[in-house]
């Protein structure tokens, strides 16, 4: 019968400690370097992508341009360093064990010391994680409270965002502005903070407002009112999209946030507050618009069209994209969108309008005047 080495719990502890002190230090430093490189590599890879020519075009969560995302960023670096450290320690132990305690060729076939456990070691690796949890929780709760319970200042810009399948409605109730898909907000300098507070609603299914550089995502849930805020400290165009599956065209419910200087924002607001441009030259197209089903879904300020199912078209040409970011706002795309929406966004709720070519051309000419 092979002889079996049997140790008590105390002897096992001694053996383990002995083995540890000699080799662990050496291996830990080596493995730490490798593991940190590995763990950091992932982060570095993603941060690298931020360094492109047009930084705003990459909606990276680590490219914070607003206070909530900055705070989230700090918390995430803290959490990443703790989890990174845990990974390095545990991975090193695993790598060490796999190498050191492998069965060697020419092994004598004896079973190793049958160790059943160790109360002290198990207590240690229970208490330390509990302490880590406490620290993580305190850091987390602090940021939750700072973001969610931030008071709304007097001069905050108020926007109601209403989610639809598959587009965004934006209303500025105090300014009398209704628009769609492209949100304009003022930059919020440290000296003169001017944050934007959004009220989030939905007309149909669940959606989620996610512009990674400006704020964490918050859902738009029907029959519920949610709130979020952002205070971008740089101008630019920031991209995002719906982040809660809402149906067939969830993928193309894109978001654009234009952060502008206070003057540019005021100019934009003023332009949006005007009724629709009335151009005599496109009367034929306006007639097509007002005598087909268009007015059932769309609104054009100052005309008979006051449908609310689809985007407000009063200042359609002030937007750079149509179909909630699915296509550039060009004459060809606009024509195609009305004639055959499935070519741009199959499954969207815009119907193919079945217009003759002549009517369609006139209609597009009319829409092109809605600046």
């Amino acid at each position, binding site marked *: *019968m*092979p002889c079996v080495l*049997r140790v008590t719990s105390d002897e*096992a502890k001694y053996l383990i400690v002995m*083995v540890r002190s000699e080799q662990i230090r050496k291996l830990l430093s080596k493995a730490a370097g490798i593991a940190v490189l590995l763990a950091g590599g*992932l982060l570095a890879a993603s941060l690298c*992508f931020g360094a492109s020519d047009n930084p705003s075009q990459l*909606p990276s*969560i680590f490219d914070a341009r607003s206070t*909530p995302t900055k705070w*989230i960023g700090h918390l*995430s670096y803290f*959490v990443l360093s703790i*989890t990174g450290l*845990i*990974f390095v320690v545990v991975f090193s*132990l*695993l790598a060490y*064990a*796999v190498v050191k*305690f492998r*069965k060697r060729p020419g*092994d004598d076939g004896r*079973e*190793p*010391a*049958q*160790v*059943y*456990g*160790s109360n002290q070691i198990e207590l240690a690796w*229970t208490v330390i994680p*509990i302490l880590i*949890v406490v620290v993580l*929780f305190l850091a*987390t*709760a602090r*940021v*939750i*409270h700072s973001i969610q*319970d931030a008071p709304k200042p007097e001069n905050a810009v108020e926007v109601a965002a209403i989610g639809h399948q598959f587009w965004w409605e934006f209303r500025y109730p105090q300014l009398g502005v209704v628009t769609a898909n492209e949100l304009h907000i003022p930059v919020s300098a440290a000296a003169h903070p001017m944050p934007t507070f959004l009220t989030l609603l939905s007309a*149909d*299914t*669940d959606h*989620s407002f*996610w512009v990674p550089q400006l704020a*964490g*995502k918050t859902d738009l*849930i*029907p*029959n519920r009112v949610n709130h979020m805020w952002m205070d971008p400290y740089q101008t630019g165009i920031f*991209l995002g*999209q719906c982040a*809660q*599956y*809402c*149906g*067939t065209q*969830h993928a193309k419910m894109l978001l654009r946030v234009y952060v502008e200087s206070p003057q540019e924002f005021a100019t934009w607001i003023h332009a949006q507050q005007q009724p629709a441009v009335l151009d005599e030259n496109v009367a034929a197209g306006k007639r097509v618009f007002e005598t087909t089903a268009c007015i059932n879904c769309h609104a054009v300020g100052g005309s008979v069209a006051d449908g609310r199912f689809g985007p407000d078209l009063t200042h359609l040409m002030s937007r750079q994209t149509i179909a909630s970011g699915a296509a550039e706002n060009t004459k060809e795309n606009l024509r195609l969108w009305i004639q055959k929406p499935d070519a741009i966004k*199959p499954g969207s709720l815009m119907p193919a309008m079945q217009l003759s070519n002549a009517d369609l051309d006139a209609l597009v000419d009319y829409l092109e005047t809605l600046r």
Partner: protein
Amino acid sequence: MSSDAIAIPNAGTEARPWVEVVHEWVTTVDHKRLGILYMVYALMFLVVGGIEATIIRIQLMRPHNDFVSPQVFNRMFTMHGTTMIFFVVIPVVFGFANYLVPLMIGARDMAFPRLNAFSFWLTAFGGFLLYFSFLGGNGLYGAGNAPDVGWWAYAPLTSRAFSPGHSSDYWTIALLVAGFGSIGTAVNIIATVLSMRCPGMTLGRMPLFAWLNMFMAGLVILAISPLTAAQAMLCVDRYLGGHFFDTQAGGSATLWMHFFWIFGHPEVYVLVIPAFAFASEIIPVFSRKPIFGYPVMVGATACIVFLSLSVWAHHMFTIGMNSYANSFFAITTFAVGVPTGIKIFNWLGTMWGGKIQFKVPMLFCIGFLFQFLIAGLTGIMQGAAPFDWQLTGSYFVVAHFHYVIVGGILFALFAAFYYWYPKITGRMLNETLGILHFCLFLIGFHLTFDVMHIPGILGMPRRIYTYEPRPGWGTLNLIVTIGAFIQGVAMLVFVVNLVYSYFKGPKAGNDPWDAWTLEWSVSSPPPPYNFASIPVVASRRPLWDLKHPEDPDSRYE
């Protein structure tokens, strides 16, 4: 204890009509046969779910791809998730529990053999019903097909207004039926473990496999019930004029979310605790040491079971709960990481000081340890609610949970297949093919799921059939897709190994791994009655005591 077989008169050497063989399998109440039925069923659906995943990955390998339409894509991710969770992982863990728990506790069968069979066929029928939706989902309206509402089927997307036709009904009813099957098996496992252990096997001497499957079964009963209730409420909404989730009529979308995630989070522990059970049996044998800290392993799993019932709304951090609610779920989420981490340390402690043999089951277990560690840490990251406000709903969380399910659970499952296949079939799986399977799958897995974290960080949401050409998104998604194909090849190697070894594998004998639990005391495959005479045990490792009579475990614990 005797492992002599009792001769069965007229034990079939002559060929029997295939109808008779099929009838025997369809009407069996033998836990071993039902276990095999569950496992084969799960493997079939693993292939189907894998095909769905491949379609998803081909569509996403470059921006604005048009491999499939958005409608088909949305059905694919819905069916992929639903299939993998309800008709792959749950059946396969039930299969292993069914096969092994009676053998490990020295019993002849489960407590309720006919309930066992009934539960299997309920689950099987549920799967077929779900897939019938591809054909029958058109119903009276000519609308709908396979369900396309996501595997969580959030309200009000599932209301008649937004999901016409019957596709959502197939999702609801198939899972409702399969849920009853799961509850039946769970009841059976608990009753078996509590009342059918052989003489001498106190609860404290039971293999961890039996403990952990009992915990899993308890969680099934607690978790499936709210899902079944919610599905019944959804049926009432859709057909009986109810408005539970009908927001147009004042109902609540968040009500569905709470019900679903009170099921959904414990559900993922239902999936992972059996993986822990596999690791807890396999790692000791290939380290040649007993499990380190058996009582703490039991206690930690009990803690996980309880704590997992308190974390569900970490799937709902973005729905607009107040800061106190978000903080509560953040701390419970962090807390559940403590017992989970303890288990990783105990497995490490088992390997420490051992003589590790790198047989294929152990290779997969080491992969499981490494990957489950990472998966747990990305879970902790998302427990920090503000960080989750960025990460949830993106490819980061998709990478996280696939890391748990594929990198953790599937790796442990592969280890279990290689470890217990000899017991079930009497033949060893081919070692070379096994190593090839492991290496290919490891490479493919890491290529896909390590890289997949990055698009999430760069702002790519989940459940999108296409995406804009943002910097990096296309290249990263292409790499993810390549990794998926490599994993597909690895799966092919595995299936070839399973089939080839069944016919040509070397005979295994009773105990090819020199292991210590009772299933290795009987022949491979075991006789229908399992044990000629019921064993009597005096320790946690009865076969160790037999092999080392001068130094039995019973002297020490």
